[in-house]
């Protein structure tokens, strides 16, 4: 238990430090002191600084927290359900489906502030439904076959995206980058507010099913024997993980790697108990996303990198070093 609290403290500390640093740095020069005064009282600094900190940086930090939090939980959930370390919203095709939904919305000409996120949302939900249906129909609705169905669907979705890519004008390519590699650049309170409420509620549902996840990830028959309604629990958990992915894709496009790697890192730290893994993975995912976004928007400022590139660059070394330490 002590190991758990230390891990939580480290992840929380990293998240806090990254968030504070994110508020104080960016393309525009704002003194750190002014940035924090702006957070506390907008009238204590000049209006430009207040806008930069309160309307641009702050919603961006919160969006990164919500997205990282949700992606890590979705990945954790998929990995437990499928008992497969390769499972994540990315490998199951949910992210590609969301991107496809968004881009299709643009292509059929109904693009708008709400229709694109809606397209992404339905793309994600439709994908997980199709993937699970295919896996259930042709194989055994189980681990490897589900992953396989996800990978096949991802390939199909990417091919369709590439097809659309040749059909649209080059000046729309940037929006494709957004859906392929993710970005927090469009973060606004109006979007992140409702989504964070949804994510919080889904997190609570997940926490309530932590024990079910433990049982299912060991053995489904065993879970039945200890009195868990496996079918019902799995339905709830697939639903929660898919919704988590779908809602955050509408905020920041598809950011790979977080859902795949963060649960593993958390598992290396505190073991396989989902009651500990859920809070730790959520905090670690949030910290990874905030740090990645900080790098993405400052490394080449004023130009921004796709945040998915940075999550991989930060996450892989962390993952490899943890694996090596564990192997020793």
């Amino acid at each position: 238990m002590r190991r758990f609290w230390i891990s939580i403290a480290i992840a929380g500390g990293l998240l806090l430090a990254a968030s504070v640093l994110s508020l104080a740095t960016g393309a525009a020069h704002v003194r750190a002191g002014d940035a924090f005064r702006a957070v506390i009282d907008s009238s204590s600094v000049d209006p430009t600084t207040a806008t930069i900190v309160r309307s641009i940086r702050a919603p961006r930090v919160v969006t990164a927290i919500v997205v990282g939090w949700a992606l890590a939980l979705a990945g954790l959930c998929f990995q437990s359900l499928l008992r497969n370390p390769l499972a994540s919203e990315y490998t199951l095709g949910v992210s590609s489906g969301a991107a496809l939904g968004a881009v299709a919305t643009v292509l059929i000409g109904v693009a708008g502030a709400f229709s694109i996120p809606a397209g992404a949302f339905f793309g994600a939900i439709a994908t997980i439904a199709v993937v699970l249906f295919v896996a259930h129909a042709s194989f055994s609705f189980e681990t490897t076959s589900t992953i396989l169905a996800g990978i096949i669907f991802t390939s199909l979705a990417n091919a369709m995206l590439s097809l659309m890519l040749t059909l649209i004008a080059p000046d729309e390519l940037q929006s494709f980058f957004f859906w392929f590699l993710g970005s927090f650049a469009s973060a606004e309170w109006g979007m992140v507010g409702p989504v964070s409420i949804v994510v919080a509620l889904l997190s609570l549902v997940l926490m309530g099913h932590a024990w079910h996840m433990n049982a299912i990830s060991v053995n489904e028959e065993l879970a039945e024997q200890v009195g868990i309604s496996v079918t019902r629990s799995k339905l709830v958990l697939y639903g929660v993980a898919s919704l988590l992915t779908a809602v955050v894709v509408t905020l920041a496009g598809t950011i790979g790697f977080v859902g795949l790697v963060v649960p593993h890192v958390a598992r290396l730290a505190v073991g396989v108990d989902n009651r500990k893994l859920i809070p730790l993975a959520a905090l670690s995912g949030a910290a990874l996303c905030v740090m990645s976004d900080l790098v993405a928007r400052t490394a080449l400022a004023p130009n921004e990198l796709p945040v998915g590139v940075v999550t991989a660059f930060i996450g892989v070394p962390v993952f490899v070093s943890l694996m090596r330490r564990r192997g020793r």
Partner: protein
Amino acid sequence: MPHRGSPADFSDRQNPCGAGTPACAPPKAASRIAEFGIRNAEREGATHREQREPAPLRRVAPRADRSVCATQAASVSQFSILNSQFALALIVVVSLLAPATAAAPHRIVTLVPSAAEILDGLGIADRIVGVTDYTDFPASMVALPHVGAFNNLNIEAIVALSPDLLVATTDGNSSATLDRLRRLGFDVLVLDLRYWKTTRAGIIALGAKTGRDAEGKALVAEMDRVASCIAGATKGAKRPRVLYAFDMDPVIAPGQESFTNEMIDMAGGASVTKGNPQPYPRISAEGLIALAPEVVVVSTMNPSKDLDAWKAWLGRWPAIPAVKSGAIRGIDSRTIDRPSQRLVFGLRDLATSLHPGLFPAGVCEPKWRRATQ
């Protein structure tokens, strides 16, 4: 005597014109007060608006507020004139308020390179305070703060420059980003620069917005003059089949009714990719032979260097008429791929490429000098 410009007065928010409308303050203090008055008025004005953003910007206040303040400042001052020092203070105040009350924006950020070119044509490049990447004309733009690429704008960098006008285009900038900037309280002028005709209209609109109507109309008049001169010179001449290429290996050409195809048309040619359903179709080697262009025009930033590479590359297919006759020509992409009044140079160059005999030096030349206009 208590100093009317004391900090306590500054905090008076009830008066929309700010504290101590400067009746007896010395000139220097008066200028500070005047400045503060404007800021305060703006804050007050902004709080009444339904802003989703928590912190309204300096520039969001309606200009009416400023005029009211100016009038009030003036009238209050008039009543309390006691000696000549006040008259001096009044002059300082009025002269300080004058630029603020004028409708013309003075801190402009251009969100595409062509907007800077148009502003330069209007004679107000010095009002530009920020530009996007690749903005290299006029040369003074290179040293200005950058706000990202036109298709990847950094909102924070734009906000930090406190601009009072953003100039964008319909097809270059993301509409979601422009909406966001509007919600942050910025004045965004979106120009449609997709065609020659809309570029004309865009120049006039930008001229009107910046208080340079006459200059805008003059730019457009010159565009019209060169265009009609070229149309007259090429009238009756055979229209060669033209392949215009933005890039090679693969060849990327203008499709649809695009503005490049429109320019080819105006220069007396017939684009072989006009009407292609894709906006920027890729043309295969076999497609090149099938299209059988009589002239190939390559747009490049470096015609002398790239043209040789192009000639070698295309030389493999002598079946193409343009290859057989050696009609492969380069054109400076900066004067033709960027829609501004400088398109007249591109149009003149294009016409020369298509009809080398018809345009000796001096015929249909734009009256502007290339380097400065």
